[in-house]
């Protein structure tokens, strides 16, 4: 990476030509609006559509009150649980794709990516249709229940009482399930890319040296897939932490996440400064996560 062509310092003009457009784009559509929102977080409402940026820290004080902090921590817990479940489900899936016959791999990957081509809102409503009290999940469970009841009558036992549909939607369970459903591909793809790069003869070498499959998995596969695991965790955790649609549609009154609270400030409460402060608390938290991860990967590099 240190050849004369790669060194931007010695090739300033071409570098500037290539970099101007994206830098301009970022400045205009990302940095400027974010700065405005950031400034709002130090202001107060002066009228229905007028914000006075006075440099006050009141918004942050209010944002760190227990009422909001608890929702924030709960969001973190829900996101972490989602990530963990995604990892537990995603790892075997990624392994299966890696070890599938080469002609099948593109199709399996397509299967993972297909949901991306469908609108999130449609996918969420489809999932809700499945999970509703009259949805297929409940119908399936009801069918099983009736089957069991019928079997009991066959052996002369009392039939079971009638099936009462289970409340699958509008609770924390539904939120986590919805988030796992949405974020699973984000976990599988980096894991697959890490596992695909793993030299299969390393696994054979471990077996050859006497390790069983579980030991090989723990001692060789997991450590070597670590970059993929970290990438998958970050890429799942961060969007899950800021999830808005899933808790809004699938959650109950007690399952709102921090993004729902922020949305309410900007819309119904029309308190932009407070919404901005909450938003930036979320962004700071993500910065900390990313910083921790990059510190960790630097440490790994130094250890080499």
């Amino acid at each position, binding site marked *: 990476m240190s050849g004369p062509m790669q060194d931007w310092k010695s090739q300033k003009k071409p570098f500037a030509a290539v970099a101007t457009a994206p830098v301009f784009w970022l400045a205009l559509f990302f940095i400027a609006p974010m700065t405005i929102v950031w400034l709002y977080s130090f202001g107060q409402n002066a009228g229905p559509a007028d914000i006075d940026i006075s440099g006050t820290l009141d918004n942050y004080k209010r944002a760190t009150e227990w009422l909001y902090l608890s929702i924030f921590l709960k969001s973190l817990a829900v996101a972490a649980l989602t990530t963990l479940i995604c990892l537990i489900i995603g790892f075997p899936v990624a392994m299966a794709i890696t070890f599938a016959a080469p002609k099948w791999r593109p199709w399996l990957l397509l299967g993972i990516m297909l949901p991306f081509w469908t609108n999130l809102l449609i996918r969420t409503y489809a999932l809700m249709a499945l999970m509703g009290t009259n949805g297929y999940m409940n119908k399936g469970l009801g069918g099983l229940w009736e089957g069991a009841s019928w079997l009991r009558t066959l052996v002369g036992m009392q039939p079971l009482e009638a099936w009462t549909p289970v409340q699958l939607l509008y609770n924390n369970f539904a939120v986590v399930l919805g988030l796992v459903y949405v974020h699973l591909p984000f976990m599988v793809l980096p894991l697959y890319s890490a596992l695909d790069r793993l030299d299969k003869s390393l696994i054979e*070498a471990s077996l050859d040296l006497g390790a069983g499959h579980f030991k090989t998995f723990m*001692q060789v596969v997991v450590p070597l897939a670590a970059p993929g695991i970290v990438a998958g965790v970050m890429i799942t955790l961060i969007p899950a932490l800021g999830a808005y649609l899933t808790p809004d549609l699938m959650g109950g009154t007690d399952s709102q996440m921090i993004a729902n609270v922020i949305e309410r400030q900007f819309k119904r409460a029309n308190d932009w400064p407070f919404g901005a402060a909450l938003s930036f608390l979320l962004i700071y938290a993500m910065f900390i996560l990313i910083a921790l991860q990059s510190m960790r990967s630097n440490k790994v590099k130094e250890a080499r």
Partner: protein
Amino acid sequence: MTEAKQPIIQIRNVSKRFGKVTAVDNVSLDIRAGEFFVLLGPSGCGKTTLLRMIAGFELPTEGQILIDGQDMSHVPPNKRPVNMVFQSYAVFPHMNVTDNVGYGLRISGVSKGQIRDRVAEALELVKLGGFEDRMPDQMSGGQRQRVALARSLVMRPKVLLLDEPLSALDAKLRAQMQFELADLQDKVGITFVTVTHDQDEALSMASRVAVINKGEVAQLAPPSDLYEYPANRFVADFVGSVNIFEGTLTLDEPDKAAVDCPGLGKVYLNHGVTGPHGANVWIALRPEKIYLHVPGAGKAVRAAAQDAPDGHNLARGTIKGMSYLGDVTLYDIQLEGGQIIRVSRPNLSRHDQEDFTWDDKVSMHWRADSPVVLLS
């Protein structure tokens, strides 16, 4: 019952098919304890599949493999008394040298002190003392290969399997490692089974070589036999370079034989070949066993040697190609019948390569014990 020395590996009627492709076709061979055994063949001939079946990474479609008398049919790789050095070395990139070499011992629950001693001993054996804390990405290919060797040897396997161990090394290092591997095998006394497509490697290291062609054993012999007494055209051609001429067996007695080759002339041998009279046979003649002369001189030299009747073991031609290789010069000579014969001539003095040049007419002769008669 007296215990005869039992082969360490017995391969019995082993076949391996992948779908419609037969990689290994009804192979039976014994590998003796303590020998340096080489499986030699072109790529795709099934030699690596055979090695992987011994290691347990592939299971035979038919037949069985016995290691030290034990049937391995239902023994997984991690329970077999063999270890493998992979073509890519497969050194664990996330562990330093000590942890790599100690991996197998750690897995099998050997005590820490013992691991330390045995790892140090193994590293000493492969001349990697002082590299204990290195990570694999800080080492050269040759050093990583030594790590892989030490990692296998430290397990004290009954058999060490090596998959193309030298293919990734540069020419100088390869020559050095050939000697070191042979030396190492001598020192540790473990049976080595190596797969290679490189005939030089096979000839220089092996005690015995199995030449594999299309999943079958073409010949199993010590290296010198393979070269001097090839069993068929495939072996003659694959091991070393050779001139092959088709001919008819005209004389076959216990102490002499003659073959009439339309492309080459009359070939006389000072030993019998036990083939049917009049049979279609092939003559294999190594390039270095042919003497090159100015026109006419070959006849006189041949006659003076008196090892063949007049008019035998002689040929004439025109030099059509030359390549000077330093130690020898190779000549491609067009015979009077049109076929090309290759002759290699040692450059015994610094001016020898100037003796002949393109389009020179030359005559050739060879000794009566040089040609080999091949029946297939």
